[in-house]
Structures are given as C-alpha cells and as structure tokens.
C-alpha cells in the first residue's frame, strides 16, 4: 500500500519533469521561453497556495501580498543593499513567514467569508504599503531588480552561458531554474500531503471538530499551512523579481490574489497537478484570447464562469472522473479532492 503511493507520487513528479524537459521542443522563440518561465514561477506559487486552500480548506484572497512582499524583499536587499540573491531569498522567506505567522494567528480563527475578508484586507494593506513607501519601493512606478546571482553567475535573460560545454541562452538558463524550482515545489507539496501533517491539514477541511477530538491542534496546523504557503509565495515572488528585473506593487494587488486563487479553483482544489494545469490555463488564456482584441476581458470572464459552473471541481479532477484509469498516476491525487 505504502509502496504503491510512493510510486504514484514519484511517477507524477517524474512525468512533470519529463514534460518540462521536452517542452522546449515546441518553443519557437525567446518569448515562448519567457512565457513558460512565468507560468512555472506562478505555478509553484499556487502549488503552495493549494496546500492552504485546496487541502486545508482555508480561503485566502490576499496571497499576492506575500508574493509581492517576497519580490520586494529580494529587490530591495539585492538592489538597494547589494546582498547576493540566495541569502536575500532565504531572509525574505523567513521575514514573510514571520509576518504570515503574526497575522495568521488571529485571522485564522475566522471562518468562511470572514476569513476571505480578512485575508483580502491583509493583501490590500501590504499592497498599499508597497505603493506608498516610495523611498524604499519606488512607489507605484516600481523598482528595478538586479539579475539572479547563483554560484557567482549573473543569470540575466539577455545573457549567454555555457553549461557542460553547451551554449545556452539566458532564457534557456532561466527556464531550467524555473523548471527545477517547480519540480522541487511540487515534490515538497506532495510529501507534505502524504504525511501525518498532510492528514492533519486535510482534516481541517474534512471535519475540524473531528480533527480536534483526536488530538490535532487545529490552530497550530492552520498557522503552519498559512506560513508554508506564504513562504512558497515569498520565494517565488523573489525569483520572479529577479526574472523580470523590474517590479511594481501590482504583484501584491487584489487582482493578482484573485488570479492565484482562480488558478487553484479552476485547476482543481486539492490536486497538486491540477493547480499546475490551472496556472498554465489562466496564464495562457489571455494569449489565446488576444485575437478577440477588445472582447478579451469579457471572454476571459465568460470562460471562467462557464468552466466553474460545469466543472465545479476543476479541470483535472473532472478530466480524471471522465476518463478514469487513463491517468493512473494521478489516482493518489484525485483521492484528495473533497466533495464538500
């Protein structure tokens, strides 16, 4: 039994890795790479958010706040104070984790719509601070961020690098970074879910009362998953800042929070591979709709609405129930989809 789950989890991550390796075969130009990198970074963020929303059942409408905080921490630490990238990412993750822990304790007592209201408020406050502390953040105009520096390399999208004698471009190098991070993020998330901690988290959604009477400290686990998902967002925010080279307070905006949670819900709450699919769909949809020009926004809303009405469980879980047994490796995934 245990072996079986181990294998299915391994198989899922391996499949993801394989897709990421062969995907560039379809890329025609650097823009495709950039799009893929962007999708990868955001996908890793929603894999973290899914732990909170999909598995633990706690709504967050302010998660972009933590993404933005992470981005600005990296941007300010490396750009203004000359830190190197990795220590900045780590320190940013710790700082954002502490912030999430402090605000999480009181607001996670709230339930349902009140929790969504409170998280929305936290996100807004972060965005407003980033917008108005001009001396530090550059205000609404944003700030530029130096390239990612790993082991002495300055990783710029415009650069050229040689790896094991292979000549690669900047976007290709970045694609590798984003791909590796997405695989790690997924791997960690799957490990958390298939563990005592993961069961405790899922029980918060399944029955908080039951969780309590068997000894799960529900307050502690809510805080834990809130912090973990915030740390995911912070690190990916920092990475994103280095990738774009320029950040604005929009990264922390309510709009982006909504984008993130939409990815989780449309992909399939509680399905790690589902939410990655959700990120892909939501990031690429505007590209596909570009032909509609001024109707793009209306089309986006319509598609979102119709998808959620007809597939309330999200894309991947619905696909899985329509075509059972085809995607065996996701069997373990689907089991976590809540019915409630």
């Amino acid at each position, binding site marked *: 039994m245990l072996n079986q789950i181990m294998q299915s989890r391994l198989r899922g991550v391996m499949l993801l890795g394989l897709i990421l390796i062969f995907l560039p075969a379809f890329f025609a130009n650097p823009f495709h790479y950039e799009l893929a990198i962007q999708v990868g970074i955001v996908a890793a963020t929603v894999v973290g958010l899914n732990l909170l929303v999909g598995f633990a059942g706690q709504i967050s409408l302010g998660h972009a706040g933590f993404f933005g905080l992470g981005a600005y921490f990296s941007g300010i630490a490396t750009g203004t104070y000359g830190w190197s990238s990795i220590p900045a990412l780590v320190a940013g993750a710790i700082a954002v984790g502490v912030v999430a822990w402090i605000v999480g304790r009181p607001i996670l007592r709230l339930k349902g719509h009140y929790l969504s209201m409170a998280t929305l408020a936290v996100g807004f406050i972060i965005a407003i601070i980033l917008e108005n502390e001009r001396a530090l953040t550059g205000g609404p105009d944003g700030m530029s961020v130096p390239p990612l520096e790993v082991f002495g390399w300055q990783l710029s999208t415009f650069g050229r690098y040689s790896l094991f004698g292979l000549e690669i471009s900047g976007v290709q190098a970045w694609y590798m970074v984003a791909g590796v991070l997405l695989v790690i993020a997924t791997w960690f998330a799957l*490990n958390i879910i298939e*563990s*005592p*901690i993961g069961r405790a988290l*899922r029980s918060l*959604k399944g029955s908080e*009362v039951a969780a309590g*009477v*068997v*000894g799960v400290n529900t307050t502690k686990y809510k805080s834990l998953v809130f912090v973990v998902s915030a740390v995911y967002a912070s690190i990916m925010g920092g990475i994103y800042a280095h990738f774009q080279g320029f950040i604005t307070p929009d990264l922390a905006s309510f709009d982006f929070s909504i984008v993130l949670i939409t990815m989780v819900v449309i992909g399939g709450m509680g399905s790690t591979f589902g939410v990655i699919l959700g990120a892909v769909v939501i990031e690429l949809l505007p590209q596909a709709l570009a032909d509609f020009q001024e109707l793009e926004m209306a089309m986006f809303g319509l598609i979102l609405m119709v998808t959620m009405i007809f597939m309330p469980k999200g894309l991947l879980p619905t696909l899985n129930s329509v075509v059972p047994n085809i995607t065996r490796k996701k069997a373990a995934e689907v089991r976590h989809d809540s019915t409630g």
Partner: protein
Amino acid sequence: MTALVEVKGLDKVFGGVHAVEDVNFSVEAGKVYSVIGPNGAGKTTLLNLITGLYTPTKGEIRLGDESTARLTSNQLAERGMCRTFQHMQVCMNMTAIENVMLGLHLRFNSGLLATLFRLPSMRRNEALARERAAQLMDYVGCGDYLASEASAMSYGALKRLELARALAVDPKVILLDEPAAGLNATETAALEELIRKIAEQGVTVILVEHDMKLVMGISDQLLVLNYGRVLAEGTPEQISQNPDVIAAYLGG
C-alpha cells in the same frame, strides 16, 4: 475505585436557556456509564462540555486529578479522552484508513523537515501508523474497507470507522454519542459486543444512547437527564424501577 471523570455543578446556558443545569456525577475507571433521557434533555450538550467543544457557564469537570473545563478538545485527547459523534464527523476528503490514521496523529507524528524530505524516520512512522490503523479497522469490523474512500462507505461502516478512529487515540475514556442510532438489530448486537470488548480492555466508556435494550444490557451505572437536570442516577435495575424515570419516559 477512584473516579476517572468527575462533573460538579455543571451549568451551560445558551441565550438564557439552561441546556445543562447543576449536573453532578462521577464515573469510575473501567466502567460503562450511560447517560439517557428524552430528546432535548441535554445529553449531547453534556458530552460536548466534557470533551471541550463547549466551555461551561459554571461548574467543574475533572479528568483524573486535573480540572479540564477550560481545556480544548485536542488537549483532552492528549490526556486520553476521545469521542464519537451523533452526527458523524468523518473526513470525507480522505480514505477510510487515513481517517483512522488521523486518530494516531499524537503517536506517529513527524516534524516538518522529516516530512518535506520524506526521511526514513518519517516513512517508518507512516508504515507503523498504517499497520496499526488496519488492525483497528479489523477490530471494529470494517476491515473490508481498508482500500476504500470514506465517501464510499455505508452508514453503519462509517459509524464503526469513527469508533476505530477514537480508539486510535488509545483513550483512557471514550465517549460515544448515540452509536446505535440508525443501526439495525444485528448491527446493534455487534456494537454491544464491541463496546463490551472495549470496556474489558480497561477503557472507561461514557455512552449516550436511546436504545434501552443496549443501555440496560451493558451499563454499570446510568444517569437520567430531563430538561438539563439530573432526574436519577443508579444501576440499570434501580433506574428501571424509578417512578420519576418511568413518568418522564411515559410522558407523565
């Protein structure tokens, strides 16, 4: 014998209404202690108070030599108290065995780092937990559902699953809220057998139940509640002959 659970002067008021009023009793270790009474008598409220889901308006609850009225339900679980629910609280987003493994949370937990990297210590713990959970499912008689989703189980099987989860906590005292509700005669007989087995292993049982045959058969001591107050307390024989109880039940 010493009292394992002791309730003194317990009051719970909801918006001016006394759901439980001045209730006193004590349960000796290793006994089956039942709480009966008409609908709305305050039985479930009493259970919710004892298990930390509600905070008493007044009064004291003791578990062993500790006052527990202010403890949360998870702190009570750490002290060896667990329960089942009248309206089942099974996590439908998990498999059957995972629900029971959830009950082993306190015994086989792993740290965040061990979890993230899936260290051998964590994997060993998981294997042990899974094995223990499977034993418990066999013990309560839902061994057929080892590979099932919780959402695919029948009502009776879910009730037994909840019991297995409560036993997983390895409780000193287990509180059962109407375990026989909705079960047929055969299932009830099996349940009676099971409760007897649990009690024989030294686990104290506090039982809220409407099925009089079951209650009279297995209880060592009975408490009768009516309108939130204690109407009578005694052995099954004493209770069945108590005129107040007969009047209350026959609608006197």
